């Protein structure tokens, strides 16, 4: 079967293969994408500098993490897409096993069981792995079938996505669960899933919303949604985060209060200022201009990523790369929307800006894959 795949993808239609081969091409690097990513990372580090409020150790740790992330980016780019294709089912299966392990042996942090720990060595969230594994698996499933996918294949894809999403939702980690599902779903969208179907599904979910509200959402999740509409109903409890983050952003104005001048963050009014709410620090200290600049760079990364994906030499590569780009966007949107009070609070970090290692490394691995599918031609 793999052999057949290989033969089928070795096609004469690859126009990119005829392009001149530059040094970075041989190194499987896209300088524009790497440059844009570096702009975001450096910019993020500047804001983080303020958010860590003098905690040098944290800051150094984050810089080390980015060093690792760059290595991961380069390495991921060197691996031919064919290998990704071949390991996709394996990664998915391993990911599922790890998720099951989390369910039984996971470590609880702040009330949800998300982590696997090998004591003394490290601990990590298998759900992060699934953010890559699910789109890989869906792309793997679809690449050998004619596109747009039929209803049957669509259903199979939904199964591939839903299973891990449910496991992650049980941890409970609704945010990641939705992101994982969304990553798989973006593959389907890019593969040509009928818009009509999407529309119907949307209507069906809307119709089922009351049932979801009643039976799926936990009490605290319902509270978060309610808080979104009326943060003042519980200003010291659930509404606190939203009130303080919108206050921080709004008080920044056009140009902000100046770097290191954010009273909301440095007086501890802003919760999670280093991690999920870091965009509020940016908004307070650098203002509208600061946030608009960030969103612009994100947009450029997305545009470049989609273009690179479209240049891939295989269906698998295109779908996978495109899905990574869209997932990246979903991160950005959900995080900024949450912090600015348009979406309920879910634990989603701001890509390449928030403090934390797992997310940064996963994302950079994704961008490595995108560069890989663009630059590996002869397979």
């Amino acid at each position: 079967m793999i052999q057949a795949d290989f033969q089928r993808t070795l096609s004469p239609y690859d126009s990119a293969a005829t392009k001149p081969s530059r040094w970075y091409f041989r190194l499987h690097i896209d300088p524009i994408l790497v440059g844009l990513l570096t702009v975001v990372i450096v910019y993020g580090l500047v804001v983080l500098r303020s958010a860590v409020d003098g905690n040098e150790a944290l800051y150094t740790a984050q810089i080390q993490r980015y060093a690792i992330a760059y290595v991961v980016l380069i390495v991921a780019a060197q691996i031919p897409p064919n290998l990704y294709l071949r390991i996709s089912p394996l990664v998915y299966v391993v990911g599922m096993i790890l998720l099951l392990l989390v369910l039984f042996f996971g470590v609880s942090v702040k009330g949800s069981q998300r982590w696997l720990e090998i004591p003394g060595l490290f601990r990590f969230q298998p759900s992060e792995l699934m953010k890559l594994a699910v789109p890989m698996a869906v792309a793997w499933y679809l690449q050998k079938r004619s596109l747009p996918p039929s209803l049957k294949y669509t259903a199979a894809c939904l199964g591939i996505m839903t299973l891990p999403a449910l496991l992650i939702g049980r941890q409970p980690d609704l945010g990641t669960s939705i992101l994982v599902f969304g990553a798989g779903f973006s593959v389907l969208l890019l593969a040509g899933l009928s818009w009509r179907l999407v529309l119907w599904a949307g209507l069906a979910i809307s119709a089922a919303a009351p049932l979801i509200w009643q039976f799926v959402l936990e009490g605290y999740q319902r509270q978060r949604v309610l808080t979104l509409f009326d943060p003042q109903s519980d200003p010291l409890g659930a509404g606190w985060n939203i009130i303080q983050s919108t206050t921080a952003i709004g008080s920044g104005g056009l140009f902000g209060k100046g770097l290191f001048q954010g009273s909301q963050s440095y007086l501890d009014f802003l919760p999670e200022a280093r991690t999920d709410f870091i965009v509020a620090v940016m908004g307070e200290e650098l203002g509208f201009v600061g946030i608009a600049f960030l969103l612009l760079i994100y947009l450029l990364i997305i545009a470049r990523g989609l273009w690179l994906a479209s240049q891939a030499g295989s269906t698998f590569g295109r779908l996978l790369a495109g899905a990574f780009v869209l997932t990246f966007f979903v991160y950005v949107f959900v995080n900024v929307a949450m912090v600015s009070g348009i979406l309920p609070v879910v634990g989603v970090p701001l890509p390449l800006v928030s403090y934390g290692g797992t997310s940064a490394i996963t994302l950079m691995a994704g961008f490595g894959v995108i560069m890989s599918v663009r630059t590996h031609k002869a397979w």
Partner: protein
Amino acid sequence: MAPELSIKDQNREVELFVGRATTLFVLVVLMLGLLVYRMLELQLWNHDTYKSRSDDNRIRVQTLAPPRGLIFDRNGRLLADNQNASSLALVIDKMPEPSESLERIGSLLELTNTQRSEMIARVESNRRPDAPLVVVDSLTEEQVARLAVNRHLLPGTEVVNRLVRHYPYAEIAAHAVGSVRRLSDEDLRRVDPVQYSATEFIGKRGVEAFYEDTLHGRVGYQKAESDALGRLRQTLDVQSPTAGKDLYLHLDIDLQFAGVTALAGRRGAVVALDPRNGGVLAMVSQPAYDPNFFVTGMSEAVFGSLSTSKYVPLFNRATNGQYAPGSTFKPIVGLAGIGLNATTWDTVIEDRGAFQLPGQEREYRDWAWTKDNSGGQGTVDLRRAIYRSSNVYFYDLASRIPVQDLVDFAAQFGLGRDMSVDIPSAGSGLLPDPVWKQGAKGLPWFPGDSVNMGIGQGDLLATPLQMAVVAATLANRGRLVQPRMMRGIDAPKSGDGESSLPSTQIALEQVSTQDWESMVAALEDVVHRGNQGFRGNGTAWAYIGQDIDYRMAGKSGTAQVVEISQGEEYDEETLSEFDRKHAWFIAFAPVENPTIALAVLVENGGGGSSVAAPVARAVIDAHMQKAESKKVAQQEMLVQR
């Protein structure tokens, strides 16, 4: 599951992908547009709202309580100062679960039940949930340490250092200086709420109450930046409070001590005045209380015993205790008799121990009367009637003076009214007259009422402070002075500050200078006339006059509390504690140029000469000793020059 055998059309799939990617990219742009729109909404269109909300978050305007003015005695010793105390304050708004936190604080600090309920009461009556509210007044060092360690668990708690009132002499000067109490809602309706917005205590008694406006000062403000837990980070702008003005009193803490010591635990009062200006040199009321309790809080047991004790320690006997003056009233009657031509210094009567109004059977007795002995002081003139304290002489004299004339004359000594300049709610005693009696008792004035008034009994009542004014007026040979606590504000006066204050002096014109000197001589005999054999000595001589090295004038008084039936003897043993006689002594010294005049009252103490006179002697001794050493020091200085 075999894949469908359809030939994959790579070109078509690329086109499909590009189409999808383009569509989704447009969607991405739209969604990012939504975010940008949201940012515009927050950062530009509603910027002002969020800006002020952010400032409200961080900037707290605090009012700063002015330091209360200090109170000094005449020698510059502190009677009331302010001490640093670490207190626990709460910002209720910053506490997620106030009741739970209070519980936790209670067990962390090992507070007593009283302290806990006090804490809860203060939280419940809190005026400003966004400002720190002191709930525990004085923390021990250990409590401060415990709070510091557990601070992260207790958002909204702060240890604040503030100045609280402290009375170094505690009970000794309690009734004279007064005390502060925690500001109540009722107080807030009376005072300027802005000026008192940071103030916790308000003067409630004595000098503290009367000079509240002077002592309080003016409120200050501070703009401060505080963090999410309500902790102060930095001060942005300060307008310092203006401290209250310091008060310098006439009070001499040494005399105060002398009075307390001399009373030796007995209930009673001592009021000593500077006769030249009415300055209150000593104001003792025993039993007293520790005014510091009202600042730092007291247990229910302590408060209970203070407020319900039958000895009423919170009651200021010196200014509000009203007692029949007894024989200390006799000098006034005597002078009235002279002034109204009812008697002369040479007129004598025969005192056989009892007096009867014409046509009445009731016997008015001499103080020395017993069943076996009629008492009686023999042949007495006014001078002897004073130093022997003859009752019969004054029964007779008073019965012959028109009552209204006697009352009008007595009123000029300040009886029946509150003469004080700066003593809050001092009692005015009672100077009865026919109008009063008709109104209060519905009875006409009987001749017997005049007879009783002749020896300071009947309905006549006076406070120790009023009797001290009487003593001062006698010392001044008729010049009335108003009692006053305050000697000066802020800057201590150079020199003695003992100049007379003529503006408040009223002369008693019906009596000549010679008459005053004669009365003073008679009063001097009370103390100094000795070794004269049976019924020849001054009443107080045996108790205080034998080893005295300065000249003192005085008059004893023994006031009956309950009426003793005709033919019955006064027997201390059979009377209950509160029915026994009150002992009075009024005195001044030195006889020429007096510098101290005082009244001593010992409640249910017994005889005025035996019980009250030694107290008076002790206080005047202390005063004279100081005056002497001062004189010596001044002479030494002169010699050195």
